[in-house]
């Protein structure tokens, strides 16, 4: 994979976006790729919690500081490759989870949002030309708001994560027409938390679902990941891949990762 920015997005919260972004980044890095993973969800940051064991505290520079022009992107990125014994490199950019920082990022002027979008676009040059990363993954905030729009527009391809919940499906459909089509953005759908884990489904059933959903969304379905109860119940202060590297969820994600490389 060469110099690709992948945004992980959804229409609503709770679809498993962060779990997918984190484990996809770690899967790639295990395979020897150099990956940067950025938390663009400034309203509900999660990556700090997930990687809290793997980083030195206090964090000197947050992604917020970069967006506010207080530091360079290189000062934000933390190398966690050794912690997870990766073949490649994994650099993470964390959003500040304190209420003060979240409040500070809200209700900013339009002029500032223009500067923020320019900053995010500039990440491409730094990450690929200066740091020689292979791929950058944006974990965006759900729905349509400045940080998620900036993330999606500045990316090369977006993975829209959805469940089979009718509100999720309607939300994604609207987003595709009113946002993705308008901006001519390349996007694929990842169905997550589909059916209970206990239900065995045949290949036919699976293919039928994919065909049906492709018709609904008019986009490629890049994967269908079943609902694994233990993933939902797992402690989220550590990546699943570090706790249980042979989990079938990760196998499903590995396939998704391979398909993404070819898009």
């Amino acid at each position, binding site marked *: 994979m060469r110099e690709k920015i992948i945004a992980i997005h959804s229409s609503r919260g709770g679809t498993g976006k962060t779990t997918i972004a984190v484990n996809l980044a770690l899967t790639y890095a295990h395979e020897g790729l150099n990956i940067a993973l950025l938390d663009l969800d400034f309203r509900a940051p999660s990556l700090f919690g997930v990687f809290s064991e793997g980083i030195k505290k206090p964090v000197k520079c947050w992604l917020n500081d970069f967006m506010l022009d207080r530091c360079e992107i290189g000062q934000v990125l933390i190398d966690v490759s050794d912690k997870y014994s990766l073949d490649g490199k994994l650099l993470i950019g964390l959003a500040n989870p304190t209420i003060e920082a979240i409040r500070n990022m809200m209700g900013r002027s339009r*002029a500032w*949002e*223009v500067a923020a*979008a320019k900053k995010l676009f500039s990440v491409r040059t730094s990450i690929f030309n200066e740091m020689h990363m292979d791929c950058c993954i944006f974990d965006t905030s759900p729905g349509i708001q*400045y940080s998620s729009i900036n993330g999606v*527009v500045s990316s090369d391809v977006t993975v829209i994560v959805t469940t089979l919940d009718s509100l999720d499906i309607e939300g994604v459909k609207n987003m595709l027409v009113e946002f993705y089509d308008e*901006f001519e953005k390349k996007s694929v759908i990842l169905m997550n938390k589909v059916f209970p884990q206990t239900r065995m489904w045949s290949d036919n059933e699976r293919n039928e679902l994919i065909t049906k959903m492709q018709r609904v969304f008019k986009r490629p379905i890049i994967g269908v990941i079943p609902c694994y109860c233990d993933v939902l119940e797992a402690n989220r202060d550590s990546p699943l891949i570090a706790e249980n590297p042979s989990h079938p969820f990760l196998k499903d994600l590995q396939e998704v990762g391979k398909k993404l490389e070819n898009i």
Partner: protein
Amino acid sequence: MDTKKLLVQLIGEVHMLNQKFDSVVEFGGKMLKTQEEFLQRTTKQKHTDETFKLEPDMVTLFSLPSALRKTVVALYKLGEATAEDLARETKRLRAVESSAANQLVRMGFLSKRREGRKVYFFIE
């Protein structure tokens, strides 16, 4: 005697003429001052119009026609670009990009600067 009378009359008329000239000069001065003020006002207005800017933030881009939106997004990516650079990025004709970028400048979303024969567009 007649000559003396004629001279007095002549001096009187020259005096009147002087007064009329003074009035004309005074009126002309007032006119010039007004004209100057008018010119200052219009120049200031023109200057204000030239620096009037709108922010092309991502939410605002939703309200733009897709042809113009594409140019702005390309400029976000390129930072600063000529119509030719934009055409390379958007895979559209240079003339299309030049027209779109200039329209965006007139709308106040973009700025442009000239360097030799090249015109660079950018988001301020």
